[in-house]
């Protein structure tokens, strides 16, 4: 039925939070034309759709303009991923029923919360590049992909551009940003996993070639080798987490060894299938359920600190050293944790002056201070105290770092939006 009465506009906002500030945004304007004073920054990197960052009540959000069914689907997908504890951006709202002042239909918008201290990969390449940064990013992406696949999530568009990275004790932890092409299944077929991994390989190569073409990456760097790395890292981690292992009945220590290996990689074994052959002489084990975040969970339980996996491992190691150095090894681990927290960790965090707190997350600062102390001790030939290391670190290192709490803005690597066959 095509009668041309103007449709009464009802803007509809489906939101996970009661963020009234969302209502203040200029929803009757196309996102591309939102006034500068509303915009926190333009997006960095390559994007299919129009994306803008905005600030509401002191928090930063990403707004993406896409068709309503796709927005709703992605919103739901991100919510599912969060529920499954997959590292991903937090969905905030879908805004639909948008019309401009003339009553013309405007596309819907998906709003996600900006991940604090997260970095788009291009931000890491706009400074003097360390050659191993690229490989570390790829390693982080491989871990994310394995975690996604274990959950039954097929990504369909794996790339560095669709990922945000957080520092993790010198490494990186990867977070999924774009779930538009994603699908959640009970389990993934080998074909689906292979396709995702191959897509990652091709996309990473393209992104690396592009950085080289933009002279942001050393000409000696080999994008093809880097992109092959994601396949290697993925395959070896996947194998470690899921392959069936066979051994003689007398070698049952291998069960513990396997679990320990997985723990070291940051995974807990939720379920292990153990079978023996009918002669009873050989044993097969295969992890059936593995959960990432082994160290994160342990640290959270002991101290209430919620940090990335490698950071957690680092802090737990330091806790163990603290216990050894203070003759507390026989004590309850909760007591050790509590003591370590109040006498070691918290003083370091409190020592960071307010003006420097936007540079790095506390757990990452702690990791860097420990490293700094190690280098200082080496230089002078004896152990340097943590206090002294901290003071030195603040004055010589942290103060020179840029703020990473909200790295958003674009510069030379503008997006190339494609919005259709417009001309």
């Amino acid at each position, binding site marked *: 039925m095509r009668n041309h009465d103007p449709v009464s506009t009802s803007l509809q906002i489906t939101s996970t939070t009661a963020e009234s500030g969302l209502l203040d945004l200029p929803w009757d304007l196309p996102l591309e034309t939102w006034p500068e004073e509303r915009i926190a920054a333009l997006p960095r990197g*390559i994007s299919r759709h129009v994306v803008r960052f905005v600030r509401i009540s002191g928090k930063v959000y990403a707004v993406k303009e896409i068709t309503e069914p796709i927005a709703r689907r992605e919103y739901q997908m991100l919510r599912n991923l969060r529920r499954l504890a997959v590292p991903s951006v937090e969905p905030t709202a879908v805004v639909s029923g948008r019309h401009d002042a003339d009553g013309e239909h405007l596309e819907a918008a998906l709003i996600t919360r900006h991940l604090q201290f997260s970095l788009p990969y291009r931000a890491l390449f706009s400074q003097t590049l360390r050659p191993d940064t690229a490989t570390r990013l790829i390693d982080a992406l491989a871990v994310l992909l394995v975690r996604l696949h274990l959950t039954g999530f097929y990504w369909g568009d794996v790339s560095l551009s669709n990922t945000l990275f957080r520092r993790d004790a010198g490494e990186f932890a990867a977070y999924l940003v774009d779930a538009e092409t994603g699908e959640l299944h*009970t389990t993934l077929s080998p074909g689906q996993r292979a396709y995702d991994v191959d897509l990652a390989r091709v996309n990473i190569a393209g992104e690396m070639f*592009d950085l080289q073409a933009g002279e942001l990456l050393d000409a000696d760097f080999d994008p093809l080798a880097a992109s092959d790395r994601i396949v290697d890292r993925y395959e070896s981690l996947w194998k470690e987490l899921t392959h069936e292992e066979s051994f003689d009945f007398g070698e049952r220590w291998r069960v513990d060894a396997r679990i320990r290996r997985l723990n070291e990689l940051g995974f807990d074994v939720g379920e292990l299938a153990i079978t023996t052959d009918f002669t009873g002489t050989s044993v097969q084990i295969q992890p059936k359920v593995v959960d990432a975040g082994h160290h994160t969970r342990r640290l959270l339980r002991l101290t209430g600190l919620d940090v990335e996996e490698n950071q957690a491992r680092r802090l737990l190691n330091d806790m163990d050293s603290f216990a050894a150095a203070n003759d507390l090894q026989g004590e309850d681990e909760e007591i050790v944790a509590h003591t370590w927290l109040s006498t070691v960790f918290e003083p370091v965090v409190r020592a960071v002056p307010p003006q420097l707190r936007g540079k790095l997350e506390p757990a990452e600062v702690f990791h860097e201070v420990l490293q700094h102390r190690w280098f200082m001790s080496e230089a002078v030939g004896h152990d340097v105290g943590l206090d002294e290391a901290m003071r030195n670190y603040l004055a010589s290192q942290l103060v020179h770092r840029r703020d990473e709490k909200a790295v958003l803005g674009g510069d030379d690597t503008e997006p190339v939006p*494609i919005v259709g*066959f417009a001309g």
Partner: protein
Amino acid sequence: MATVTFDKASRLYPGSDKPAVDQLDLSVGDGEFLVLVGPSGCGKSTSLRMLAGLEEVTSGSIYIGDRDVTDMPPKDRDIAMVFQNYALYPHMSVADNMGFALKIAGVAKDEIRKRVEEAAKILDLAPYLDRKPKALSGGQRQRVAMGRAIVRSPQVFLMDEPLSNLDAKLRVQTRTQIASLQRRLGVTTVYVTHDQVEAMTMGDRVAVLKDGLLQQVDSPRNMYDKPNNVFVAGFIGSPAMNLMTLPLNDQGAQFGTMLLPIAREALAKTSGNRITVGVRPEDLQISTTGEGLPVQVDVVEELGADAYIYGTTDAAEKVDIDDPDMRGEDKNSGENIIARTDGRRPPTRGETVHLVPGDPGHVHFFDISSGARLSV
């Protein structure tokens, strides 16, 4: 020869008792543009993904040319999923953007250049090869993205609802452009959509699926003129075909006060005293003699040369292709009728008109229980 063959291919999800795709037998010719269409959940995407290697084949086989690809990983099948990846790299030239997948595959530089230039010619991008994507319009950028799939020279293009991302205005423009591009390239293409208008305008042939089963595969013309069953009849065509259940005797079907004759061979296939009849809105006209199906006019949509009448009749029972057992409806409530009429003197709201088919050849008869086509 890049034909595609589904040979009794099925996909049954573990824990499910009904296959998502049920013994699909479908052959796509070399260079053909075949569209898989159907409502949500019909199995069209699953079928495409089985072809892509993204979905396991529980039983049966899939062939590309004469290669059995049933258990082959996706990247060995020589297919290209088009529109999966729109990203254009801002620092690379258009030529490099189009060719980099070949670069990764280790193809020689001059071969890459050759393929890129060929694709650029077809895509009207030849003057832009050395420019950066930023310098291109939105439409040109989209063509560069397509160029990436084209230069790989795959045997088959697969497209899974590629226009669903675009707003309504652009869908129509893009449709014809994709279709004409495929004609120029001559690459076998399997395309999935839920939109039957899209299917009918783009495909050389259209395959309609429902509940995992192939309903009919035919040219758009044949699909429109001779739907195999009630579902296809009601699914294809917009506005939809009028489908109704009418009383049947050995003379024919009772269309209000008018008797619709049925060919003896068709009549022989019926059982009982009711029959399902379908007539498209454009095949109905207002009777001058007052005989035919009485329809009370609820709404008149005036479009200039034509007008559409929306009304109800009590002389026929409802048929709902999405709910054939009529679980959700009172069987005896009035059936909705749509008819196209001359826009210059349309009837008025509230008026009762009598409708008759303009041409008995455009009346479709279907079996009341199976829904299968009865007329020849």
